[in-house]
């Protein structure tokens, strides 16, 4: 009997529990309807129909994932603690670290399945739109780039999920975890804007100032999600970044997830269950 099997067992029940939640089923239905609305959304655009449709569909996927994270994932560990299910789970021969990993695995799989479904529908919708238009309005639709962009969303949201696991280990209660997660997301979204603004206002001599380095250091903690945003490549025959850059971005994201989860495991292992 090894740790992977225990993590898998816990991940499985987290996954099954999520699959049966009415709220998540509602989220999936709502997202699918919103993606179908993409067929109407394209009517507003006279030229770059493919691009607008692609942006819309990926944005729906992003928002669906955020809703899942902010309204389900932030509460999972808190629910277990508040309703006492944590005792039933941790009375088994599962360590605290395995518990955190199991919850993460179950939620990550739920998120993956959500995006797989929405991504498949989005791909079909874009194909339908492309076939209904003249080539001028939708000249290029690259499937490998579509998959890369889809994978970018999945990995970015796994990063957020790892942060949620960390916050769940730090504080008790779903609401504080939600507040921390929203603050984290806000900083991650705003920090690149601040960095761009600061670099525009600094002269070349000042570009190596302490402020620049400080903001760069902050980005190691609050990652820039736009580095895995490949939406603009979907309608291009060429990638906007080199393969090596893409590999580095995914690698950094993967390491970030691993670091956050390991830290979360350590935090949770020290905690008394109230």
């Amino acid at each position, binding site marked *: 009997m090894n740790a992977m099997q225990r993590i898998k067992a816990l991940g499985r029940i987290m996954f099954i529990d999520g699959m049966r939640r009415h709220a998540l089923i509602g989220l999936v239905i709502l997202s699918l309807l919103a993606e179908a609305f993409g067929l109407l959304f394209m009517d*507003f*655009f*006279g*030229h*770059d129909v493919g*691009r*607008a449709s692609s*942006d*819309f569909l*990926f*944005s729906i996927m*992003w*928002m669906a994932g955020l809703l899942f994270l902010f309204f389900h994932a932030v509460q999972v560990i808190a629910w277990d603690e508040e309703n006492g299910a944590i005792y039933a789970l941790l009375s088994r021969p599962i360590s605290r670290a395995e518990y955190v990993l199991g919850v993460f695995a179950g939620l990550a799989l739920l998120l993956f399945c959500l995006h797989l479904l929405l991504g498949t529908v989005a791909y079909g919708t874009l194909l339908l739109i492309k076939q209904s238009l003249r080539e001028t309005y939708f000249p290029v639709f690259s499937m490998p780039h579509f998959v890369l962009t889809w994978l970018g*969303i999945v990995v*970015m949201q796994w990063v957020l999920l790892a942060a949620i696991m960390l916050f769940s280990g730090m504080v008790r209660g779903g609401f504080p975890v939600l507040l921390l997660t929203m603050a984290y997301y*806000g900083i*991650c*979204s*705003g920090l*690149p*804007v601040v960095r*761009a*603004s600061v670099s525009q206002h600094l002269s070349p001599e000042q570009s190596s100032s302490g402020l620049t380095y400080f903001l760069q250091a902050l980005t190691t903690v609050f990652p820039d*999600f*736009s580095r895995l*945003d490949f*939406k*603009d490549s979907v309608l291009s025959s060429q990638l906007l970044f080199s393969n090596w850059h893409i590999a580095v971005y995914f690698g950094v994201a993967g390491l970030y997830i691993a670091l956050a989860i390991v830290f979360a495991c350590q935090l949770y292992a020290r905690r008394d269950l109230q």
Partner: protein
Amino acid sequence: MSLRLTFPLLLAVYLVLFAYQETVKQQEHVELQPAPPVALLKTAGYLKQLGAEMLYIKAAVFLGGRDPETPPDSYAAVLANHFDAMTALHPRLLDIYYLSESSLSWIGAQYTQRANAILAQGGIYRPELWVIPFFIGFNQFYYLHNFNDASRTLRTTSLKEGAPVWLGHLSALLAARGGNILGGLAWLRAMAATEDDATVRTRYEIEIKEFEKAAHVLSAISSYQQKYSRPPAELKNLVPEFIDAIPILGEGYELDYEAPELYMRKKHVG
């Protein structure tokens, strides 16, 4: 009053008031509200492209729904800000540039330049397209009457893949209109030398002949200037010392002299 009567009565009052509100709203002047600051919009992160598309729809709906009598100056600044925000968020969306060209560039010189600044963003992010720099060149020519800049822009544009062949010709025309007759002539000769289509090449050669006549007049002006250290006050002063006669140009061209510049104007181009 019983509860049974209260609800239908309240509902009736609500519906009447609502209908009245709708009538009042339709009479109201439709305004375009300013776009939020770009820095704030950029914090939308992954959704910033969608934000740009929402702003586009907002601008398009406003333009489609406004009273045609609305003075453009009343909304041009806000509209330009919308386009600035859109290009900051999603510079690759082509529709932004089409809409800005159609709604902003004609309002006045200030907004033509704003439109060109917006289009310049499109030129950076969609360098494969000829239509965006064509819009810039058109604005420079038609609204700003800056013929030399227009000529340069259209010349570069004509070299892009898929660009129509008449762009180069228009560039030469505008160069001559701007006083750069020799530049226009050189460009026409270059196009004629590389043109495979015999009909088009013949057309170029006809135009080249007219340009060469104008170039001959230019040469005479230059000689006059060398001798008298000043340009001639009128073209007829060149005759007969520097030129036998002022040529009459064909193909709709005419010479326009505002000392010291000689322009070659095509009548329908202006």
